[in-house]
C-alpha cells in the first residue's frame, strides 16, 4: 500500500539551515546536507529545502548546495524559493533536485506551471499555496504570506492542477506556528476535489495531529519544521506512533 509521507522542511539561507537545531549528533550545526542525511537515516520519506535568500549572488550558492544535497541524500527532495522562470527550474534539475516548488511566481505568471510541467514533467512541479481563512473564504497570499492576492485556495489549486502541477503544498497561515494541529477541514475539501497528491503544512505540534491530518484531512503527506528541528517529535517516534494508530507509513 502507498505509504503516507512525513516531510521535514528546512529553510536555508547562505547555505545554512536557518531554524535552530539542537541535535547532539550533528557536528556542523546548521549544515543542511548533514541535517538532511540525518533525517533520511531517521526514516523521513522526503525533504523540502526552501531557499529564503534574497540576492542573486546567494542564489548561486543555493544551486551548489542542491548539488551537494543530491550527492549525499538517498531519498527524494524538493527545492523551492526564488524560482521565477523556466531557467531557474532547469538549473535546479541539473543540480539534482527531484522536484521544484513554485509559489508567488505561479501567481504572477501562471503559465510558468505549464512550462515546467511540459518541459520536465508534472512530477517535477509542486505548487505551494499559502492561504488564510478570513471573511468566509480561504484567500491566497504571496511573498511569504505578506501580500494578499485575488485568488481563492480551492479554485487556484484546481487551476494549477489543470496547468500540470503534480502536487499541491498547502500551508494554512491560520494554523502555521500555532502547534494546535493542521487545517483538516480545508485539507479534506482540497484533497477530495483534486486528482493530484496534497501535502499538508502548518500547525503540527503533537503526534496525534499527524493521525488527524491523514484520517480527517485526507492528506497524502504532512510537512513540518520546528518539531523536527528541535527534536520535539523525532521522526522514528512519530512513525511508530502512526503505525500504532493504523496509519500506513514506511
Amino acid at each position, binding site marked *: 500500500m502507498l505509504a503516507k509521507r512525513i516531510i521535514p522542511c528546512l529553510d536555508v539561507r547562505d547555505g545554512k539551515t536557518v531554524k535552530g537545531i539542537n541535535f547532539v549528533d550533528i557536528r556542523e550545526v546548521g549544515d543542511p546536507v548533514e541535517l538532511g542525511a540525518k533525517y533520511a537515516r531517521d526514516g523521513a520519506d522526503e525533504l523540502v529545502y526552501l531557499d529564503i535568500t534574497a540576492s542573486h549572488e546567494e542564489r548561486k550558492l543555493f544551486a551548489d548546495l542542491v548539488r551537494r544535497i543530491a550527492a549525499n541524500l538517498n*531519498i527524494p527532495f524538493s527545492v523551492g524559493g526564488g524560482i521565477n522562470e523556466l531557467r531557474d527550474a532547469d538549473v535546479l534539475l541539473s543540480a539534482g533536485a527531484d522536484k521544484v516548488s513554485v509559489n508567488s511566481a505561479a501567481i504572477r505568471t501562471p503559465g510558468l506551471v505549464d512550462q515546467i510541467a511540459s518541459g520536465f514533467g508534472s512530477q*517535477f512541479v509542486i505548487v505551494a499555496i499559502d492561504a488564510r481563512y478570513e471573511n468566509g473564504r480561504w484567500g491566497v497570499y504571496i511573498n511569504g504570506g505578506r501580500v494578499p492576492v485575488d485568488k481563492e485556495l480551492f479554485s487556484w489549486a484546481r487551476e494549477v492542477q489543470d496547468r500540470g502541477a503534480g502536487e499541491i503544498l498547502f500551508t494554512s497561515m491560520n494554523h502555521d506556528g500555532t502547534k494546535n494541529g493542521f487545517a483538516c477541514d480545508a485539507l479534506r475539501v482540497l484533497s477530495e476535489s483534486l486528482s*493530484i497528491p496534497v501535502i499538508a503544512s502548518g500547525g503540527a505540534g503533537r503526534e496525534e495531529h499527524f493521525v488527524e491530518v491523514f484520517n480527517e484531512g485526507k492528506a497524502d503527506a504532512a510537512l513540518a519544521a520546528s518539531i523536527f528541528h528541535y527534536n520535539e517529535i523525532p521522526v522514528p517516534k512519530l512513525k511508530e506512533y502512526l503505525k500504532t494508530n493504523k496509519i500506513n507509513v514506511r
Partner: protein
Amino acid sequence: MKIAIIKYNAGNIRSVDFALRRMGLEAEITDDHEKIRSADKVIFPGVGEAASTMKHLTANGLDNLLRELKQPVLGICLGQQLMCRQSEEGDASCIGIFDEPVLRFPPGEKVPHMGWNQLTDPAGDLFKGVEPGAYVYFIHSYYVPLCTETVAGCEYITGFSAALHRYNFYATQFHPEKSGPTGQKILENFIAL
C-alpha cells in the same frame, strides 16, 4: 568495472550517478555508442515524457543500440517504460525489448502514484536480499501491467510491474537511487550481475 549511464534529453540522470558514487563506483554519463557498447553495465535512467524522449533516442540511434546490447542493462522509471513496446503517453512507439504496453493509471486514486510503496513477490538476481513488502520510491502516472517478465509487483489502483527482466535486460518502475538502503541493495545486485 565500466558503467555507462545513457545520456539523453531526460531529467535527473545525475541522481543515478550520485548513487553509484555513494557506493564507491564511477560511471560515465555518455551518448557515445562505442562507450556504451563496450561498458560492462549500462543504466538507462530517466524522468520525462515518453513521445518526445523516444523521438530524441531514435534521432540519435540509441533505440537500436539499446536493443542490441549484450551486457546487463538496467532501465529506470521512464527507462523501463521506453523499453516496452508502446506507451499511451503521447501514443509513443517504444524500443520493444519487453513486448508489453505502457498504460495510463485509470481514475480511482491520486495520480501521479507518488511516494513509497511496497514490492510484492520480488524475485531473481535483482532482488537478492530484498524482502517482500520492502518499500521503494515511485513517481509515475503510467504503468506496465503484470506480465510474464514481471520480477516484482506493486499494488496501486491495480496490480502493476515494479520490475521486469528478460535475458540481459532489467528494468524498474521505481527509483532505486532514491529508495534508501533497499534501493542501494538493488543497485548493488545489478552491479554484481
